[in-house]
């Protein structure tokens, strides 16, 4: 990975709000950023360990609900005459708790689901997301059901000279999402370029061979699931405290599909893939909004996706890499060979 490019890109994103302080643009990029963080987390499972989790929105939703519930506090009867009461916690504590809770759910689903692979794994993860949606719809004491949870407190931050500030402005939210996104990206980048990450990739490439050199399958799959779920939970927490209203729709299948599209179109198993895919598919609906009718928007969305998968089946980022290599290759042809080829061409 080219760290110089990474630095320039992050700096560019960092100063963007000064260059173009339009709240609408910033909020659009901010929401796309939250989806990109979710896509980064999915990429760890789908791209690096090769497990297709079609219930990833569940982790996103659990993170959102856990963070919202912790920050608002709750008082719920869990049966046997026991009530579970939690007082409102500071938002950052709630956010951290949400990440841990989602990580735990990742471990749980990993433990249950990795006993099976392929289609069975996919079905289990879909079912998990559905069950979570049902719980959020029906456990009204805890989640307010279809009414959703409202007036979720925003993040706040102590800034020198200004005191404690609520992060409610579009620019503040933008920077917050950017910061969490950079952390998530670095976490995955460090992980996949380490011994642990190599073990995960080995499981994707050839599980039998991987175990033969001493790589414990269940440990690394569970580890990937925990980290992936925790990052998705962080994205969910960000969503809850920035949008400040959540309802059971956060568990909808379409959100998982969006994440999968971002990862696959951008290039699964590459660090930049979810970012590139997320920017394209996260921003496209907004960019097209003023230009074409909503129906046409979705047609363009679909066609773009089909074209990418048809012509660049491995995704955009690998295609860009291939292109760069292709531009650089002609130098590699030995001089004598190319002269002979030219001579042969001249004769014919």
């Amino acid at each position, binding site marked *: 990975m080219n760290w110089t490019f990474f630095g320039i890109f992050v700096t560019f994103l960092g100063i963007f709000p000064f260059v173009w302080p339009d709240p609408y643009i910033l909020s659009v990029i901010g929401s796309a950023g939250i989806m990109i963080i979710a896509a980064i987390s999915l990429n760890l499972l789908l791209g690096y360990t090769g497990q297709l989790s079609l219930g990833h929105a569940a982790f996103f939703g659990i993170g959102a609900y856990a963070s919202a519930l912790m920050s608002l506090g709750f008082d719920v009867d869990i049966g046997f005459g026991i009530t579970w009461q939690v007082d409102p916690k500071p938002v950052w504590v709630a956010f951290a708790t949400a990440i841990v809770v989602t990580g735990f759910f990742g471990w749980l689903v990993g433990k249950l689901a990795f006993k099976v692979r392929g289609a069975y794994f996919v079905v289990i993860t879909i079912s998990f997301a559905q069950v979570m949606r049902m719980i959020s719809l029906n456990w009204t004491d805890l989640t307010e059901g279809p009414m959703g949870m409202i007036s979720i407190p925003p993040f706040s931050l102590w800034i020198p000279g200004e005191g404690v500030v609520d992060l409610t402005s579009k620019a503040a939210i933008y920077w917050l999402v950017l910061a969490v996104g950079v952390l998530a990206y670095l*976490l995955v980048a*460090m*992980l996949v370029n*380490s*011994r*642990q*990450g*190599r*073990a995960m*990739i*080995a499981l994707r*490439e*050839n599980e*039998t*061979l*991987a*175990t*033969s*050199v*001493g*790589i*414990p*399958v269940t440990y690394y799959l569970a*580890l990937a699931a925990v980290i992936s779920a925790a990052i998705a939970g962080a994205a969910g927490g960000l969503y809850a405290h920035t949008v400040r209203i959540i309802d059971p729709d956060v568990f909808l299948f379409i959100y998982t599909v969006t994440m999968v599209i971002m990862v696959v179109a951008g290039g699964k198993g590459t660090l930049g893939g979810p970012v590139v895919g997320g920017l394209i598919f996260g921003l496209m609906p907004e960019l097209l909004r003023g230009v074409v009718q909503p129906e046409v928007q979705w047609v363009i969305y679909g066609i773009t996706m089909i074209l990418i998968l048809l012509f660049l089946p491995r995704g955009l980022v690998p295609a860009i890499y291939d292109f760069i290599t292709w531009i650089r290759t002609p130098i590699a042809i030995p001089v004598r060979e190319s002269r002979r080829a030219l001579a042969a061409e001249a004769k014919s």
Partner: protein
Amino acid sequence: MTLAKQPSETEQVVLSLEGVTMKIAGLVALDDVTFSIPAGQIVSLIGPNGAGKTTAYNVISGYMPPTSGKVRLFDEDITGHTPHSIAARGLVRSFQRASVFDDQSVFDNLLTAYHLQGRASLIQSLLRLPKFRREEEQLKTKVWEMLDFLELRRRADERAASLSYGEQRILGVGIALAASPKILLLDEPAAGLNPSETDEFKAMIRRIGNSGITVLLVEHDMHMVMSISDQIIVLNQGRVIAEGAPKDIQNNPAVIEAYLGSGVKRA
């Protein structure tokens, strides 16, 4: 680590099977198989197709638990252990097919295979602490050494899938060696190799044997088997029918019958 390398330990038994029986859906693939492999030798397991050689490998390396019987590695009962824990104890196998990580470079193939040598914890890896950096450097040095041993140095950056078939087999053995085995199980390593590749391969197996690693080999190429084995074990229909030095095996009537059928006298 050094057990197998000391000459005084040559009498030590590395691996032994005691009455191993394996039934697969009513078929008796292995029937009361008992044999033992002394340290530092190159031992071949041969037999006609369907004799149970690959099943024996799967049972030894933990991919299939046996119906009954015991597998011992250095006096430790490893029956029913998982493949990765058996690999961690020093028994590593190579595969007939799919012996490399196709989509990764040759270098990364070996770096991945050095998994067991790594000690850096998750936190150390994620934060890039000094221990992680030092360990990465050491592992990379080891990979270059292994590439030299395999004579694949100039292929380091190529995708494993783009190597020639012979080179892929050699890389497959390298991956197994990277797990620092005390005993190495090779499953038909020379299948599909041309004569010159087979010769290179034979030389490599000798180098492995000379470095003190015990080798168990399943192979159909009889020239190779007879020329490099210290000892041969013959399986037929799930039973051990003969055991001994290559010369004795060549003249053993039971073996000749198994391969050529009865009624044919020794030519």
